[in-house]
């Protein structure tokens, strides 16, 4: 199995898409971090308290949580890891080398965790260093153990890894690369945000992958619509794993059983 996971990682890192994704992820994460730094301490427009000031210990976890914006990119990579096999028909060679198709899917899920963790490391390094500099420059005290900072860091690791799994499961289910990518992006940016932001829909929203990821980090930032209703952090993690396993199992029973012609 280790061999197969290594082969899957080799597949990803011998093509160029991964670093394109990494760069775009860092740019977008950087942009959102920029706003979190820029608007720190500013009251919201309706006069309600907005983001805490940089020197406020409550700011650091919010700044660090910008790294969780990478989920969409590990999800896209996950979708690509699966669907490019069908797009370029490399699935033929893959199944000739490993005829037990379930093992191939399992290896891809394993590789997805590794990719998610690697992306989380890079993202957290960039975001973390920037946050530390911002806090120290503003004269704040650095507290890396309090204020849910460890939980946020763990949450970033878990959510980036689990979204990669989510993407792989989705890709196994929808073999058409374009359809799978559009589906994933529409889901993450449109459907999830609707269900996550509107309190009346949060009953459903907390059970969606985005709700799971938010629960993982307990990012209960008040968006002005009331504090979101979320599962406990462990529940969020289980939820995301559940989605990935569900997709992979369904894919294993349907799509990947089909004849390769």
């Amino acid at each position, binding site marked *: 199995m280790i*061999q*197969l996971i*290594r*082969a899957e990682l*080799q*597949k990803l890192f*011998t*093509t*160029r*898409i991964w670093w394109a994704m990494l760069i775009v992820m860092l740019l977008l994460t950087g942009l959102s971090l920029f706003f979190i730094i820029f608007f720190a301490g500013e009251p919201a427009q309706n006069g309600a308290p907005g983001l805490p000031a940089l020197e406020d210990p409550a700011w650091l976890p919010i700044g660090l949580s910008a790294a969780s914006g990478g989920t969409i990119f590990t999800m896209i990579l996950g979708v690509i890891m699966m669907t*490019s096999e069908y797009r*370029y*028909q*490399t*699935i*033929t*060679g*893959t*199944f*000739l*080398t*490993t*005829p*037990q198709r379930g093992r191939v899917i399992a290896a891809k899920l394993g590789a997805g965790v590794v990719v998610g963790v690697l992306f989380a490391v890079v993202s957290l390094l960039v975001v973390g260093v920037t946050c530390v500099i911002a806090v120290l420059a503003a004269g704040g005290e650095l507290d890396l153990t309090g204020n849910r900072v460890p939980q946020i860091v763990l949450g970033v690791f878990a959510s980036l890894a689990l979204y990669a799994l989510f993407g792989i499961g989705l890709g196994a289910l929808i073999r058409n690369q374009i359809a799978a990518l559009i589906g994933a992006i529409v889901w993450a940016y449109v459907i999830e945000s609707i269900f996550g932001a509107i309190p009346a829909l949060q009953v459903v929203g907390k059970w969606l992958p985005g709700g799971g990821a938010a629960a993982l980090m307990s990012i209960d930032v008040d968006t002005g619509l009331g504090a979101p209703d979320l599962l406990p952090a462990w529940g969020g993690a289980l939820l995301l794993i559940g989605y990935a396993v569900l997709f992979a199992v369904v894919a294993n029973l349907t799509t990947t*059983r089909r*004849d*390769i*012609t």
Partner: protein
Amino acid sequence: MSAIEIRNLSKSFGPVRAVNDVSFTVEAGTVTGYLGPNGAGKTTTLRSLLGLVTPDAGEALVNGQRYTTLAHPLSEVGAVLEATSFHPGRTARNHLRIMCTAAGLPARRADEALETVGLADAAGKRVGGFSLGMRQRLALGSALLGEPKVFILDEPANGLDPAGIQWLRGFLRHLAHERGAAVLVSSHVLSEVEQTVDNVVIIARGRLVRQGTLAELTQNGDTAVRVRTGADFRPALEEAGARVEEVEPGVLRVFGMDTERIGQLALDNRVLLTEVTQERSDLQQVFLELTGDEPAAAVGTEAGR
């Protein structure tokens, strides 16, 4: 135990019966040509053999096992399928290295295989820039990674230039006759494999129509001798026991009698013969008769499915 055994294999795609109760075997040390027009069911048979397609009935076994149960498939079977199954952004070497990693083979096998198929210079180039012939060589390289003893090749000559085809023929013969491998190679162009194969299996519209050695296929016992003469030679021939057909005035086709006997008869009857030719059963002709297909479809250049 045969290296490859197809037993009563049937497979339908929707209403289309792609393969219908086909059985044949391929032994070690031989090259078997799997011939038929496009759409005859060749690719479906080979893909069933490789576990990519699940047959509706029957079995397709390699070394006595189904492909999906082989512990080290790349070390037992080398397969060449379509030429397009590479990621265009990946280099030739990386493509083979990934297969080595997944199969637990040492990474150096990738370079060795590229060397064997003559792609050593292009090892670091992205496959996207490869010609069809180079992709075909790369596919062959991937089949060689595990140094298997069974080879399954689907239209491997497609896209190769004449020199490449010549090389491929020699290589397949080398694999079978010197390294004792069992080679099953499909083609819709008979002349491509005519000089390479020991045995032929012919399939048309999903059904097996003939199998045997190449020699058996051409010697169908019914060959005629073509005789041209101005004299009335027919009664003498028929009296001597031959069956005679008049092709056109002065040209006869004589069945059941060899050229020496015909010459003797002509001498005895003082008949002048201006031509005595042993007709050879042309393999291409046999192929077309057996597959009952339009010549255009049988000798076209499109890949069969």
